[in-house]
């Protein structure tokens, strides 16, 4: 299937209209010696054949394990209305709303999404999406460097190791001075952070809840940074926002996060949704599309892309970021999800995660030699120390139908026996019970 509408006959008519004798003539600019050396692709297949093939590939993935994997990416339930609405073709077959008259749907949805993010995080201004939580954090660092004109960034050890790696990759050629501060008892180590910052520091990068699932109150760090003219950046879990202290309340300057938990499927890593919100005064340094409300030539309310002078298509090499295509549809999904949830639903969802997580913490700590790292409060994820290598335990539990958690040794050398366990509202008492039993059985057969 090639999805080409014109028949061979029509193609001939059109060639004639163009005054050329053959399709080949249209490609005459391509020199003979640059004809493809090879173009060895499989032959065309029908929709049915390809669907069958893709289905057989899908069936070879273990998506059905009872999963306690998190690490910043969560298996929340997605109400059916999210798919039903986001799959309306007027949304998903459109592109960036360059022509506002034909894009009020997308534009108003972005404006509402920006409002969602501001209300969730307690910040003033949000953009209309970035690629993911990691690139969003990187962009926030770039913003801070540009705003402060300084050169040093201090990163808390509770920030996702995946995101830290990403930040370092992007900074490779940028001559930035990074310092990392390991956590203490699972939370940000105040003394160490305060020791690491100075007046050359552009930003302190935090995460809440952090990678170990631990909730913190970073207001003291924010306050101290403020004194020193340092910006604080906090990566947050959007669902936790309904119950924990927000970046706004904490005194954070720029907040970012991964919006996947808001109605976007796990999909083996993407597309996800980077969100970012900041204080009003920093908005001209923000990357990405921003939608503003205005009026049209008849005085009617209307929405447009605004502050475009920040962007690459206007400012080229001087743009705040190079982003062009973003994660619009993921932002739309997040907005639909949040609209369905509402204040009550979102709060209840967060509380359900808290309650179920607490249940599993208690249940697991009852297992001999399993220690739940319990010194600080957690949201929907927590760390356990096992008596043996966590990778091994997880591997054995897979045979029993569980994705038991994420072994921390992969990112934290020395933490070979530690495992990160996530719980969403989808996990039932029964699933958690049999999970604990199986873990017990694997450890103490």
């Amino acid at each position, binding site marked *: 299937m090639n999805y080409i509408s014109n028949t061979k006959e029509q193609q001939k008519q059109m060639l004639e209209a163009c005054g050329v004798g053959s399709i080949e003539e249209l490609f005459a600019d391509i020199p003979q010696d640059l004809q493809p050396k090879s173009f060895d692709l499989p032959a065309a297949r029908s929709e049915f054949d390809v669907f069958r093939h*893709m289905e057989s590939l899908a069936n070879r993935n273990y998506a059905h394990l009872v999963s306690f994997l998190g690490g910043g990416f969560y298996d929340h339930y997605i109400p059916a209305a999210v798919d039903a609405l986001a799959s309306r073709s007027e949304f998903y077959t459109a592109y960036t709303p360059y022509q506002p008259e034909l894009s009020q749907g997308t534009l108003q949805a972005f404006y509402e999404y920006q409002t969602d993010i501001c209300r969730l995080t307690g910040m003033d201004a949000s953009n209309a999406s970035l690629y993911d939580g990691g690139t969003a954090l990187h962009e926030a660092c770039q913003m801070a460097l540009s705003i402060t004109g300084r050169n040093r960034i201090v990163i808390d050890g509770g920030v996702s190791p995946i995101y830290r790696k990403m930040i370092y990759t992007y900074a490779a050629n940028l001559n930035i001075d990074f310092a990392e501060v390991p956590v203490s008892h699972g939370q940000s180590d105040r003394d160490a952070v305060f020791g690491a910052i100075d007046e050359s520091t552009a930003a302190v990068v935090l995460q809440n809840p952090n990678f170990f699932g631990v909730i913190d109150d970073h207001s003291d760090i924010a306050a101290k940074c403020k004194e020193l003219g340092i910006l604080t950046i906090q990566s947050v879990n959007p669902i936790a926002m309904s119950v924990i202290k927000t970046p706004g309340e904490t005194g954070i300057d720029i907040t970012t996060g991964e919006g996947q938990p808001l109605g976007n499927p796990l999909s083996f890593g993407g597309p996800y949704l980077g969100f970012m919100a900041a204080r009003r005064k920093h908005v001209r340094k923000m990357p990405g599309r921003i939608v503003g409300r205005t009026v049209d030539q008849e005085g009617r309310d209307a929405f447009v892309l605004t502050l475009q002078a920040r962007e690459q298509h206007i400012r080229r090499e001087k743009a705040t970021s190079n982003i062009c*295509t973003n994660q619009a549809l993921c932002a739309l999904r997040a907005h639909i999800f949040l609209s369905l949830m509402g204040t009550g639903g979102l709060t209840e969802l967060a509380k359900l995660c808290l309650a179920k997580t607490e249940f599993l913490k208690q249940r697991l700590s009852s297992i001999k030699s399993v220690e739940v790292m319990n010194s600080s409060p957690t949201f929907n994820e927590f760390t356990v120390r096992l008596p043996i290598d966590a990778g091994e335990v997880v*591997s054995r539990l897979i045979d029993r139908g569980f994705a038991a958690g994420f072994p921390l040794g992969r990112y934290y050398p020395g933490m070979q026996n530690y495992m990160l366990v996530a719980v969403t509202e989808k996990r039932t008492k029964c699933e958690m019970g049999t999970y604990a039993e199986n873990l017990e059985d694997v450890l103490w057969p």
Partner: protein
Amino acid sequence: MAVIFEKSVPGRRGVDLPSSEGFPPVEIDSRYRRGESLNMCELSELDVVRHFTELSQRNFGVDTNFYPLGSCTMKYNPKIAEKVAALRGFGELHPLLPQLRRGGMLTQGALEVCYELEHLLCEITGMDAFTLQPMAGAHGELTGMMLIAAYHSNKGNEKKEVLIPDEAHGTNPASAAIAGYTTRPVPTCRENGRIDLDALEEMVTDETAAIMMTNPNTLGIFNSEIKRVAEIAHRHDALLYYDGANLNAIMGKFRPGDALFDVVHVNLHKTFGTPHGGGGPGAGPVGVAERLVEFLPISRVVKRADSTYALDYDYPKSIGYIAPFYGNFSVCLKAYAYILMLGAEGLREVSENAVLNANYIMHALKEKFDIPYLRTCMHECVLSAKRQAEKGVRALDIAKGLIDKGYHPPTVYFPLIVKESLMIEPTETESKETLDGFIAAMLEIAELAESDPESFHAAPITTSVSRPDETKAARNMDFAFTEK
């Protein structure tokens, strides 16, 4: 129509959560607790469905009608791709699963998709290896720039600058700058619309890290002297970057790898039919020549001797992590299905028909509109509304006039080097009937621009809003709704 927050009714609910199964509630210590009350909208499922249904009615997609937005390749998005992406075995797959011990075996289907797609892209572009991780074209460019930097720094080269044709897309200079390079624009030759080779020759120095090219370029013109560009670049150990946004023009006809490009990004959301999503997500996989392979981001997907697939992180010279996982996987999935359906012959026909459709439009409009570079174009043609602008009908006015005729306008005011530019990319999926309708509309507009130029000012009149005030938007900075 009202903003969704204005429709909110306190206490209304749109969704019921799973039972709490009697778990006792957990109190968060007040120190950690949210203080400010949460003020999301409160609506029923019906309210939400009606709101977004109405919003959708204020949008225009490829499924609505012709969408010849130049440089964006707004081709038809086959419906089967959505069905494939929704398969639970893909949609509900956690990305950390293959990172567990022996976890690769739990995601063989997904890893096969990645591996095979990378190899198909290699064959299509003539490159030696691909990474799927970049999440859009610009992200691919940035990745490419970082690969180039890694190459040079590995060789001990001290390179500071990237040269970019003046007609290039804005993301090119922006990406180079963000990767730490200074950039310099290379002029375009007035006569043939290609990069000015003499100027280039002069500009390239040992400081030059790379030259970024788009071929066909944003004027829709294929540069037959591309080998000379490569030769000039490589003479100075500058690498040659290929912006693959326009790949739809040349599949099966030309492979950047054969012309000695070192780095290539392709836009799956353009060439390979994945939907544009109202602005994204896309995917911008990057391909490289042999000498750059060792720098590709990790993880990489490898095929082992026993024909199983695995993630491999053991590339000490890799630039590292550019994405949390394996890119915008479900976009890649759709592109993979697309390529399998089309096959070699189908992809070649795609380019043939994309080019034919663009030339057909250009020929039909050449009498009534200025064509700055009147020659065979590739997948898109760039007109200028200069003639109309003299009567007061600018490119923007023509765009608004087209809206009232039921079409999405072409890209306007890009490329920047053409005054009053209208960049028309019809794509191969559009039929002659559709093109003829569009041509007729353009000709009517050209006529109206002569006979009644004033009439354009009210346009569009068929939409719910008309020419929103952008200055006011920038001044008001109303980015989030607040209740009065």
